[in-house]
């Protein structure tokens, strides 16, 4: 039984996947949908055309950035569920800057992105400071900051930034459309030789770059090492002379910066203007993605792709005449979190593995004897 650990790990993972799919199938059956067809739409339909695949990549972009951002605080012993608020504050600052700047494209674009980063970082630093200074649980304060940011944003959309075209009308409040020169261009605009169906925006390259930078920062620099040390054992880190609370605030700032960037990229690439509800729940989904990606920036990339896939699939259910509401994506995400955290602990528990190994050896031994 040399490879028992490998077999055990694979078995647990396989079981948890089956469990997730099983529960999902049960819920789909209750909703009166054809389970197999639904699964086909969720997992395979996005691959059928290049246009669908581009849609997946567009969803994957903010998910990757938020997911990478969520890894940093987790590794530093703090949880950031304020992604939504940080996205909103980031993109708000970016929009304000973009609407008022006269800079040429090559300068304006980086400055707008930087504004998003700044807005998110400042909003993320607040709960970090509250935790470090007053011991306020970040799980609660970040949620409160989400609501505050959402209200502030809707005020800004309704009053100072309101598009005169919808003022006084019945339409949802939104800002003026940004200049075309401030948009993130589509991939087929950059490379005209590519197929017309490939229409995802270039934000994905920013996302991949961020993942790489955060990986190098967390694993190849002294600061990153100290942050991870503070996260894996607070007491040991403190004994080693690491100021745990300082790195906590830094981790929250980095996470907020990523969320702000994600919001900005979403605006520049997809919406091209400030709208209500333009964060699309990515602030929460990013946490799921980070967990699914093993809390590693490079693992986040495939995880984000997977979640973008099922997210796109779920939103395409209605088009494919399957009577399942798109809320199904929340159900799936929630299930995945619950199953992953449980499976992780099962894998981390040496006693359970020991017991399983003894049972298996006993079982095999009996067979050999017989």
């Amino acid at each position, binding site marked *: 039984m040399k490879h028992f650990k490998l077999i055990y790990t694979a078995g647990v993972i396989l079981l948890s996947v089956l469990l997730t799919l099983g529960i999902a199938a049960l*819920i789909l059956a*209750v*909703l*009166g949908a054809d389970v197999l067809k639904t699964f086909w739409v969720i997992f395979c339909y996005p691959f059928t055309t290049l246009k669908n695949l581009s849609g997946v990549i567009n969803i994957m972009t903010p998910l990757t950035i938020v997911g990478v951002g969520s890894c940093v605080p987790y590794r530093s012993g703090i*949880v950031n*569920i304020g992604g939504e608020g940080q996205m909103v504050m980031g993109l708000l600052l970016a929009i304000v800057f973009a609407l008022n700047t006269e800079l040429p494209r090559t300068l304006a674009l980086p400055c707008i992105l930087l504004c998003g980063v700044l807005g998110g970082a400042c909003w993320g630093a607040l709960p970090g400071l*509250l935790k470090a200074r*007053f*011991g*306020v*649980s970040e*799980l*609660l*304060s970040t*949620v*409160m*900051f989400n*609501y*505050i940011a959402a*209200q*502030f944003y*809707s*005020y800004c959309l*309704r*009053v100072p930034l309101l598009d005169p075209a919808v003022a006084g009308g019945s339409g949802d409040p939104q800002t003026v459309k940004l200049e075309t020169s401030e948009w993130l261009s589509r991939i087929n605009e950059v490379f005209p030789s590519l197929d017309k169906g490939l229409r995802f925006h270039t934000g994905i390259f920013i996302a991949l770059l961020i993942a790489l930078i955060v990986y190098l920062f967390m694993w190849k620099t002294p600061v990153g090492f100290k942050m991870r040390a503070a996260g894996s054992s607070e007491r040991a880190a403190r004994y080693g002379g690491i100021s745990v609370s300082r790195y906590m605030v830094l981790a929250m700032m980095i996470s907020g910066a990523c969320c702000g960037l994600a919001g900005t990229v979403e605006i520049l690439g997809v919406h091209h203007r400030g709208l209500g509800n333009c964060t699309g729940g990515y602030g*929460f989904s990013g*946490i*799921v993605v980070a*967990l699914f990606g093993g809390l590693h920036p490079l693992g986040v990339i495939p995880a984000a792709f997977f979640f973008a896939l099922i997210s796109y699939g779920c939103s395409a259910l209605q088009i494919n005449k399957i*009577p*399942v*509401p798109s*809320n*199904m*994506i*929340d*159900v*799936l*995400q*929630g*299930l*995945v*979190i*619950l199953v992953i*955290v*449980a499976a*992780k*602990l*099962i894998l981390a*528990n040496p*006693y359970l593995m020991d017991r399983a190994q003894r049972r298996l050896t006993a079982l095999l031994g009996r067979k050999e004897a017989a």
Partner: protein
Amino acid sequence: MLDFIVLFLTVGIPLSSALLLASLGETVNQRSGVFNLGCEGVMSMGAFVGMLIPFMVGGAGKVAWYVNLAGLIASALVGALLGLLFGVVVIKFGAPQGIAGIGLQLFGTGLAGSLYRHFIGGAQGVAGIDAIRIPFLCDLPIVGKMLFSCNPMVYFAFLMVPAVHYLLFKTSWGLRVRACGTMPRAADSMGIDVSRTRYQALAFGSAMAGLAGAYLSVCYAKIFTDTLIGGRGFIAVALVYFGRWSPLGVMGGALLFSLAQALQLAVQAYGFTTFPYEFLVMLPYVLVIVVLIFVGKSKHVGPAMLGKPFNREMRT
């Protein structure tokens, strides 16, 4: 001015009941050492199930009353069931409770939304449970309208405050629950089954959260929407910290928060529309953060082992 205050309180007290029920339940959860951040999801499911039964069965008069009651009981049961599901993840497997709570929240809200669209669909209301007017007392000036013509569930919520207090501090079960939250190892060595006690507390607390959701859909709004719960589950969790894990403190928190919300509604009703209402909506959330700052300083009030999984086989 008096009119304004009366309006403000008549709006605020019914608003506080959902928060009160949910955070009383969460108090019991946290006293046992389990941090249930998924309260929001449980409330969503409770709201949906509580409304589904009256919607499907209907009925009138006396029958409708029983049907509504059945809806409330079903929502409590569904809440307890979700609590036990959460318990398997965080008690049996010892998963990090904050993250698992987010999972439960997504799962519950998503499921409630999906099932709602399938079984009810569209903005359809129910007759629900109406406010009752207590004879004679409701005719009193000012307080009559504020205190004696509320929904029965409002009275139930406020009656649960002494009930939960008694349960936690005057019964042996309550002592066991608090022992599991403060020092599970000692409780274990005294022969208390820590896991079982935590499961019980979680089932009780989540049943309360389910009821809180049902109160919103059956008694308060009489309709279910995706945004019906609107973050009340998270607020309920914060109020437990606010109230320092005591039912009375939680009641104070729920009232304060709801009155801050009612202020916004009252201000709008009185036509001060020039002031951007978003800042008034923000007010209660800011208030919670400010209060948490002050509560955060005192470290020795809460259950010492809150959020820490207990495994009797592991060394500490």
